[in-house]
């Protein structure tokens, strides 16, 4: 018998069962517990916000792909746009109005991602690009926090009331829920000349379990960290960036707090509030915008952590994670250039090892 087997394809003729969609789906599953906790904590408006942010991110991607005359279906199905919208949503104030989510989602996938050429091409983390754009454009809405009013509790708005809040803003009936985050509170008090030792008594409760005001999915450090550990064990991410970033925030916080507790928040507050945990496990570890070599990852993570601490402590914004990650994103190509893994048979500089026989 003699037959033709068609166009030959190059080796390898075996391939992993892993794929981009599966990676994105795993990250989303790891992110789900803290998001669901956020839904429970902040009720219906947060659910609507999450939905519209993801929908807008998908729409932005679809719109740009149409402009570029590309087949949108496989790209939309790879899960990256959903994940971008999701990551943005969990970093937003839970009762933010609908247009914040819509604008942010669109911004993330259009100017944050597709404008660079789509998946894998963007220099900056799309979700953080959108978050920073929102923070600068709409500072009032982006720093309007609410106290937790768990779903189905008496204080919580129902599905219809939630829709009203979502579309018309926080109505006077729910004004009492307005609140500040730990970092925002510390910033305000310090700027008023009240030192932290005095103001600590009225500080918004810092809780490892996340039962406090904050972004939609950022308050429950244990759920985010747990999701991060799951990703570590499934080898979706490596330990380098999260550990380096948490050390980068925690170490200066511990030193400065020890030196002057009246001016500097303690390490626990820094690590467990704001976007530190989310940033360390879900944002800074974004493949596209972070370095590849282990040492490069350590440098990148430490830079993210340090910049977060510096911006939180001395800059005008209470929230430093998004800025820090974006700044370090811009350094990723340089870090990649300087920190390459050692090649077999070559020294660190790339010169062949000496031969001795």
């Amino acid at each position: 018998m003699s037959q033709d087997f068609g166009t030959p394809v190059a080796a390898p003729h075996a391939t992993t069962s892993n794929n981009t969609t599966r990676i994105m789906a795993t990250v989303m599953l790891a992110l789900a517990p803290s998001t669901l906790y956020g839904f429970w904590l902040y009720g219906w408006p947060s659910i609507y916000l999450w939905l519209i942010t993801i929908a807008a991110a998908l729409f932005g991607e679809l719109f740009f792909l149409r402009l570029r005359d590309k087949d949108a279906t496989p790209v939309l199905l790879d899960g990256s746009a959903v994940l971008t919208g999701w990551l943005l949503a969990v970093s937003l104030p839970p009762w933010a109005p609908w247009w914040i989510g819509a604008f942010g989602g669109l911004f993330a996938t259009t100017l944050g991602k597709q404008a660079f050429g789509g998946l894998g091409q963007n220099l900056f983390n799309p979700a953080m690009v959108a978050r920073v754009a929102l923070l600068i454009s709409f500072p009032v809405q982006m720093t309007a926090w609410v106290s937790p009013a768990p779903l189905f509790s008496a204080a919580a708005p129902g599905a219809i009331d939630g829709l009203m809040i979502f579309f018309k803003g926080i109505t006077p009936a729910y004004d009492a829920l307005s609140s500040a985050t730990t970092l925002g509170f510390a910033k305000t008090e310090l700027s008023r000349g009240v030192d932290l030792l005095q103001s600590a008594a009225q500080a918004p409760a810092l809780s490892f379990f996340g039962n406090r005001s904050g972004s939609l999915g950022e308050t429950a450090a244990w759920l985010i960290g747990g999701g991060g550990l799951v990703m570590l064990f499934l080898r979706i991410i490596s330990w380098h960036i999260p550990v380096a970033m948490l050390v980068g925030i925690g170490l200066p916080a511990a030193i400065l707090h020890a030196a002057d507790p009246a001016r500097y928040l303690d390490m626990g507050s820094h690590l467990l509030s704001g976007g530190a945990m989310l940033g360390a496990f879900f944002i800074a570890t974004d493949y596209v915008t972070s370095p590849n070599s282990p040492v490069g990852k350590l440098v990148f993570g430490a830079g993210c952590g340090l910049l977060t601490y510096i911006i939180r402590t001395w800059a005008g914004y209470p929230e430093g994670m998004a800025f820090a990650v974006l700044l370090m994103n811009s350094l990723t190509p340089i870090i990649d250039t300087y920190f390459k893994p050692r090649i077999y048979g070559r020294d660190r500089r790339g010169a062949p090892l000496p031969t001795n026989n």
Partner: protein
Amino acid sequence: MGFLDRFLKQPSWGVHPDDHKRPAADVPLRHLPPPERIYMPLHQHVGGAARPVVLVGQQVRKGQLIAEAQGNISAPIHAPVSGTVFAIGDVTAPHPSGLPLKAITIDADFRNDWVEADIPADPFALAPEDIAKRAAAAGVVGLGGATFPSAVKFALGKRLKVSTLIVNGGECEPYLSSDDRIMRDFADQVVDGARLVMHAIGAREALVGIEDNKPEATAAMRKAAAPYPEVKICPVPTRYPMGSDKQLIQTLTGKEVPSDARAAEVGVLVHNVSTCAAVHKAIRLGQPLVERIVTLNGGAIAQPGNIYAPLGTMIGDLLAFVGLKETPARLILGGPMMGTPLLHDRIPLVKGASGILAFNAREASKPDAGPCIRCGTCADACPMGLLPMEMAARIRVHDLEGAETFALADCISCGCCAYVCPSHIPLVQYFSHAKGELSNNERAKLRGEATKRLTEAKMARIERENQEKAAAAAKRKAEREAAKAAAEAASQQAQGETA
């Protein structure tokens, strides 16, 4: 990544594909009845092709030299069956191009009539060079797939000081089990061959690296090597590409082969287990390399297993022997990680063919490539510590020099990166393309330089010739004038005399 690996003392490089070795590996070895006609290609090794020394119509015996080595790196070819030379013509090369390859066709007479063998009484009394000479004459080449003429490697071992012979029983490619079978069924031959190679290269010890997914082979080899303390059986972790010489050397000795250098330069030499068995046959039995064990495996094959077959057998005959359940969707020579896709089955079995895989549609299906998400999985998997995504990004925009700065030349084309890529980017294809392009450029550059040198030499020659011509002309002119002057002087003198 690699945190758990390092924790468990596993290598941090490489991949762990499903091995698919069983049940084919456990099926007893079968012998292929000699086919009616075999096609023995003249080029079955790295280096120069062999030159035929038989004529069409000539009777040959099994093991008779039919083509002799040509050049420093080459190997002779012997008749795998006894019979009549039918033709010396073209067959399809075992290469995706499907280009023709010169082959000697022999019609078998089924007499299994061997040439008389030259067997030394005590091979260990032979000079090391003599072992190499006999192995070279028997056409022994590396049977792990590289097909480098073994004797040339022995000579290298003598020239550089080699203390350790590494016997490669890694067989890390999924689906393949021909080396496993050799070690299980012919452990004594492998150990004896390894000791002969040690003698040939002057090594003091032999380390036999066997992946720990082959416990039966390890046990058989332990038993065979028990009387010889210098031959050590060393189970190594199952991890692709453990069978790559650089990775095996690092695992067994901790030594790293410098880039651009050969293994001998760190005092080791690597030979495959099947090569050792072939050396045993060449020296102890005086039998040249005319047969081999080949794995036939894959979803389209009815009775997968290992077949002992004469070289030159058409792959179609082998497939007919093991039976096909369905029309294969892809035919591969070698393993799935580095094997060569074949255009059809009218291609002969060659010395380096450790396996023939007939994949069904499910095994052959390849997901479409997506964009690189820079996940770095390829870099984590690369056993050479390279950055495949960075090289591919540069090759994609035709920046070949840029890819070269990332040590493209050090890529061993093992396929780990393309295997793990979640976007299924055909990275190895990128690298092969770039390497080919670069060597073409290099050749073109050398050719250009040679042309320039020749042109310059020609110009200089023309210049010199012109100068010489001018000088000769001037000389002739001067001589003519001198003669004229002399003639005039003579005539004046004559006039004066007459006056």
